[in-house]
């Protein structure tokens, strides 16, 4: 009934193209496992074609289509349909504050937002999906719109507003080629997708398995995430997982009771990876190759790789933290000091990146200071300033040292502390700052310091929650009579850090 081949042939690299190829090879193989049910490649294709046909019927001409969907399955189907249509997708997150989603829509100039149930936030821009039964001729899902971009994601921004990262099909193709070249995944593999669709690792965790005909398990909507992940890793015998180190850190106490013999690959990223923690993790998954990857939304997910090893990594770890390793092929880097001079081996500097995976601008050409041109061997390259401080060790492995600003990674999420402080200041009209502290188990949490006014902690948090994401909310607000200032008349964060909260 379906002619997947014709759908494939008309496309250059596209998420949907790879998916169609798998549909052709493995039509009855499970593609998605969610809420105890399986959806085969053929069944998933059918669902995708419904949304595709709906876009055709509505004569959508937008090169970027927003998607606001409450379930993983709706997102999965919608993203594949948008890709098949030829447009780029921009995911909006129902868990985000309404104002944040509205800002993203406005800033990106989105005019069409695909939704699957009634939503009032986006007015006339809303395109509410209705049942559309595909006819036979719509089985060839050829692109209607020509678009170089694959997707646009918004990340936390220090100026108080998120910034849009446009990632091209060429950027993603380079990333996927790395995984196709370096690993031998097949239709027998079982992956897990644990990330919000607004989080860049979801791109790899969702689209890559579909490329090789593997299955993907989604998490149930209810309950605590790290427990659900462990449950699925164990019960569904997952063979490959993209995870943030927090999952291992939160599970640490229980790891001696957990056995994951089927797990072949664990790709950690998003936070500092502790060597000691990996020794414990490896005992739970004895047949697993543990890898530490590094990347940013601006580098199309991951861009460096380090293969963890019990003995070698103990020597190579810096302050107990595993290196982020070497760059993927085809990427160029500079490590620059404060005077923009290249650092020598062992010297700490800012990592600047260029190459096929690296974006060369933000949406609306904002934050141009984060990009610069440099001639290298007669070639003019655009480099992106990551803001991450790194150094090379004697084996030329990169070590992550920290940030040169106030960005942190909170359970894998990229969080600009200044963005939270920006809103706090707006709400309280007092001096405010936000500090990341560690609990007894080494897990980061946020504490806000605010100069006392008549507002209570509850008042402030409820208004703050309307503007920033749940995971960015401080665990505690500490009121101070007068904010301590340093010699430069700036908030003395060192003094605040010493306070016992």
């Amino acid at each position, binding site marked *: 009934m379906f002619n997947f081949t014709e759908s494939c042939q008309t496309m250059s690299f596209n998420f949907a193209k790879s998916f169609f190829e798998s549909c052709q090879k493995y039509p009855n193989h499970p593609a998605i496992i969610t809420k105890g049910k399986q959806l085969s490649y053929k069944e998933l294709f059918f669902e995708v074609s419904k949304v595709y046909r709906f876009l055709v019927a509505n004569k959508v001409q937008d090169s970027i289509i927003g998607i606001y969907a409450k379930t993983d399955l709706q997102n999965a189907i919608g993203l594949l349909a948008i890709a098949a249509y030829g447009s780029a997708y921009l995911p909006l997150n129902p868990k985000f504050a309404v104002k944040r989603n509205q800002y993203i829509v406005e800033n990106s100039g989105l005019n069409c937002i695909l939704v699957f149930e009634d939503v009032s936030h986006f007015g006339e821009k809303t395109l509410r999906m209705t049942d559309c039964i595909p006819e036979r001729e719509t089985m060839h899902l050829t692109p209607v719109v020509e678009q170089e971009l694959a997707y646009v994601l918004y990340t936390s921004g220090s100026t108080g507003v998120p910034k849009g990262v446009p990632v091209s099909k060429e950027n993603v193709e380079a990333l996927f080629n790395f995984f196709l070249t370096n690993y031998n995944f097949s239709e027998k593999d079982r992956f897990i997708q644990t990330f919000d669709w607004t989080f860049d690792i979801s791109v790899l965790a969702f689209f890559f398995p579909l490329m090789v005909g593997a299955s993907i398990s989604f998490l149930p909507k209810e*309950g605590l995430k790290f427990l659900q992940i462990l449950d699925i890793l164990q019960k569904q015998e997952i063979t490959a997982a993209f995870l943030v180190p927090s999952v291992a850190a939160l599970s640490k106490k229980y790891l001696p009771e957990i056995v994951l013999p089927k797990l072949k690959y664990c790709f950690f990223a998003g936070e500092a990876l502790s060597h000691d923690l990996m020794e414990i993790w490896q005992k739970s998954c004895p047949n697993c190759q543990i890898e530490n990857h590094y990347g940013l939304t601006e580098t199309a997910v991951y861009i460096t790789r380090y293969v963890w090893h019990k003995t070698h990594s103990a020597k190579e770890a810096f302050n107990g933290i595993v290196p982020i390793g070497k760059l993927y092929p085809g990427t160029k880097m500079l490590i620059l000091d404060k005077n923009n001079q290249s650092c020598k081996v062992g010297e700490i500097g800012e990592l600047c990146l260029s190459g096929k995976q690296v974006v060369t601008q933000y949406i609306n050409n904002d934050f141009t200071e984060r990009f610069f041109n440099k001639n290298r061997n007669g070639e003019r390259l655009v480099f992106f300033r990551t803001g991450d401080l790194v150094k090379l060790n004697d084996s030329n492995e990169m070590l992550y040292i920290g940030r040169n600003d106030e960005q942190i990674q909170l359970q894998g999420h990229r969080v600009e502390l200044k963005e939270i402080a920006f809103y706090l200041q707006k709400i309280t009209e007092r001096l405010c700052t936000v500090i990341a502290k560690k609990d007894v188990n080494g897990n980061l949490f946020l504490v806000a310091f605010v100069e006392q006014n008549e507002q209570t902690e509850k008042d402030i948090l409820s208004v703050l929650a309307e503007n920033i994401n749940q995971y960015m909310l401080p665990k505690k607000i500490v009121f101070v009579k007068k904010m301590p200032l340093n010699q430069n008349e700036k908030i003395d964060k060192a003094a605040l850090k010493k306070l016992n909260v």
Partner: protein
Amino acid sequence: MKQTIFEEVEQIFRTIFEDDSLKIRMDLTADEVAMWDSLTHLALISEIENHFGITISFIQLMAFKNVGDLIDCVEKNLLTKTN
């Protein structure tokens, strides 16, 4: 015994969530409490283990769907301990 456990667990919830007026129910779930995330959950379990002098296993932890399950587990572990 269950009522005593319930009251003591409620007090632990109030300490962890820093909310003296917090009332728990047997069918209360993590999804209903805004600040009940993975970190808070672990802090809660740890405090309950210390308070009652018990150890909650991974299998028991995975079986919790609501506060009622947690209280049943505490009761079961206390009975095992006294026997």
